[in-house]
């Protein structure tokens, strides 16, 4: 896949063997948790889930390139793999799918990972604002914190995304617009969504560099994201990274893809499984062996078990929390509603 505009970087840094193995471990952990979440939904442990199946390379690769001591992630709702990669507490992350709390229970500030966002395109402008804040804070070039915003091919149609790209380019904000072009927005294929066929191509119109990268190649994604981050960190402004991937699962557990694509199409359009690809590469390069793969899978299973237990143990939040977080300074009227609620629901 060709660069639409080459990033003016000296070329991707080579990843060391241990880094490659770590990328694989992360991808397996994410894949296993993702597939388990579908099972959890079938078993009634959670009411719904939006799988990222097939997007492991895009999510793990980009997340891995971040410097979480100074960068900040703005996800949408399908970024479980990014969350896991950057170290968000996964019980607190998955709690959103248990209908415990919409944004997830994790601390977004401490996690440097904004609350889960259900509005498609909703947080893209926030990334620009946060990034501009870094510019205003005046960190020297080369040390700027960078905002990375994750959104889909469908989201790229929203006016807010255009506004965000234009604002960022005008203000030279340190932002990476990371698009996972997974071929689908629910039932609508990219051909009917993205005029011109590429979101990355639009960057030229805003005067910013962009890369369209093979989103199923975790190494390529890591390198492209690292280059985009370096560009922003150096004070050179925003970039677009479009990871070409495929939504191998349903849109969500309540979706029925059979209505708009055949299994045959899924097989051919999906291309090679990013996990199988990485595995083959590690084997071919002699970086890992079967024992390593088994170990990685065993670790993924153990991790999933812990998360599942955590989710299982998670009870509903107390009803008072409905009222607690509406304001920093609650109004009298709201306090009155809270006590009326308590009286009527607890029959006191």
């Amino acid at each position, binding site marked *: 896949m060709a660069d639409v505009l080459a990033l003016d970087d000296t070329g991707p840094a080579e990843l060391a063997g241990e880094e490659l193995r770590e990328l694989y471990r992360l991808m397996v952990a994410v894949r296993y948790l993702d597939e388990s979440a579908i099972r959890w939904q079938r078993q009634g442990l959670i009411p719904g889930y939006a799988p990222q199946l097939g997007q492991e390379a895009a999510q793990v690769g980009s997340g891995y390139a971040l410097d979480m001591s100074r960068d900040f992630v703005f996800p949408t709702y399908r970024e479980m793999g990014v969350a896991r990669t950057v170290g968000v507490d996964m019980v607190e992350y998955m709690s*959103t799918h248990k209908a415990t709390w919409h944004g997830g229970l994790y601390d977004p500030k401490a996690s440097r990972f904004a609350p889960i966002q*259900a509005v498609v395109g909703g947080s893209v402008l926030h990334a620009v604002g946060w990034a501009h804040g870094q510019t205003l804070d005046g960190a020297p070039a080369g040390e700027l914190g960078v905002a990375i915003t994750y959104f889909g091919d469908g989201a790229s149609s929203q006016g807010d995304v255009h506004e965000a790209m234009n604002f960022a380019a005008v203000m030279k904000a340190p932002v990476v617009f990371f698009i996972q072009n997974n071929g689908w927005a629910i039932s609508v294929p990219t051909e009917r969504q993205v005029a011109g066929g590429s979101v990355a191509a639009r960057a030229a119109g805003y005067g910013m560099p962009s890369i369209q990268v093979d989103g199923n190649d975790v190494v390529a994604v890591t390198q492209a994201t690292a280059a985009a981050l370096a560009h922003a960190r150096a004070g050179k402004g925003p970039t677009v990274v479009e990871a070409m991937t495929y939504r191998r699962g349903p849109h969500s557990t309540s979706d029925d893809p059979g209505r708009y694509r055949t299994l045959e199409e899924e097989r051919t359009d999906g291309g090679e499984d990013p996990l199988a690809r990485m595995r083959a590469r590690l084997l071919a390069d002699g970086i890992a062996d079967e024992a390593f793969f088994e170990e990685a899978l065993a670790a993924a299973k153990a991790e999933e078990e812990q998360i599942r237990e955590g989710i299982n143990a998670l009870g509903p939040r107390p009803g008072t929390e409905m009222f607690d977080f509406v304001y920093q300074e609650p109004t009298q009227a709201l306090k009155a509603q809270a006590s009326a609620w308590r009286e009527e629901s607890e029959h006191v």
Partner: protein
Amino acid sequence: MSEHTTLSDLEAAQDNTTAADVQQESVQNFPEPADAGATETMSMQQALNRALAEVMTENPRALILGEDVGQLGGVFRITDGLQKKFGEARVFDTPLAESGILGMSVGLAMAGYHPIPEVQFDGFAYPAVNQIICQVGRMNYRSRGTLPMPITLRVPSFGGIRAPEHHGESLEAMFAHVPGLKVVSPSGPNEAYHLLKYAAARQDPVIFMEPKSRYWQKGPVNAGADAAGYSPNGSRVVREGKHLTLVAWGAMVARCLQVAELAAEDGIEIEVLDLRWLKPIDAEGLAASVAKTRRAVVVHEAPRTSGLGAEVASTITERCFGTLKAPVERVTGFDVPYPSGDLEDEYIPNIDRILYGIQRVLEYRRG
């Protein structure tokens, strides 16, 4: 019934009511349509789908547009099969942008079409609010009546399905506040069928709020040629009573019927009024009912402050001040963002809270 009736007995009765019962509000809650034409039993989803098919057949200028409304038939399948039937030119998926969907509908209306856009969920009407308020609601006015906006905006609305954020909002007060818009919400399949057909034949924009938690409940629908006797205007009394009027719309109508059922066991006869039109509000219908019952409680899912309940209470008070035995009571959602699934039953008015509201009104004593 004495003035001093309390509802402690009622509370005992409703303690036996489980959450499952609440979900089971069924066919018999909806009285048979008044005119005894051919009725069929169908779900609200089927009734809406049927209505849309008939509108598309009868009006060649009608168009359906939105996200996933084509091949998928909408995430709730309301437009199921319509693209196949009417072609991709008349039933089409747009790119994912609600402002685009509504802005484009304005232009299509100016070109003489009757757009029937869908926004996928209530919370995603927000990105379209600029077009809805500044354009859809005003073009007729701005153009001195030369550019009418025959747009029927379908919005799967309200809560109750344990969905992600922005999938359970109640926007009626916001829409009703906008000059130039009309707003309607069906409570059951028969209403859905007729009100959608009626709305889609109007020359003014109508926001059509579909109670998504009721999509799959079945009821009798009097469709087709026999439907002539149906009256699509104003409110509708769905249960007669004499002690108190419960005013509701959308999914809350079925819940209020349940409450009335429970109250009846204690000899309290509650009239349930399905408001249907949230703009214009049927002031005469409200007055006629409350003139009889002299007490009213309005129930809605939306937050309380500046909710439509305030408009209903004020409308009743203006007309019935002299005869009211108590101030009109509101039982509503709270002034909080619609919560996640685990807390949604705490948020949506439940049977207990509606009964408490009724109790306050029944026990009210003038100063």
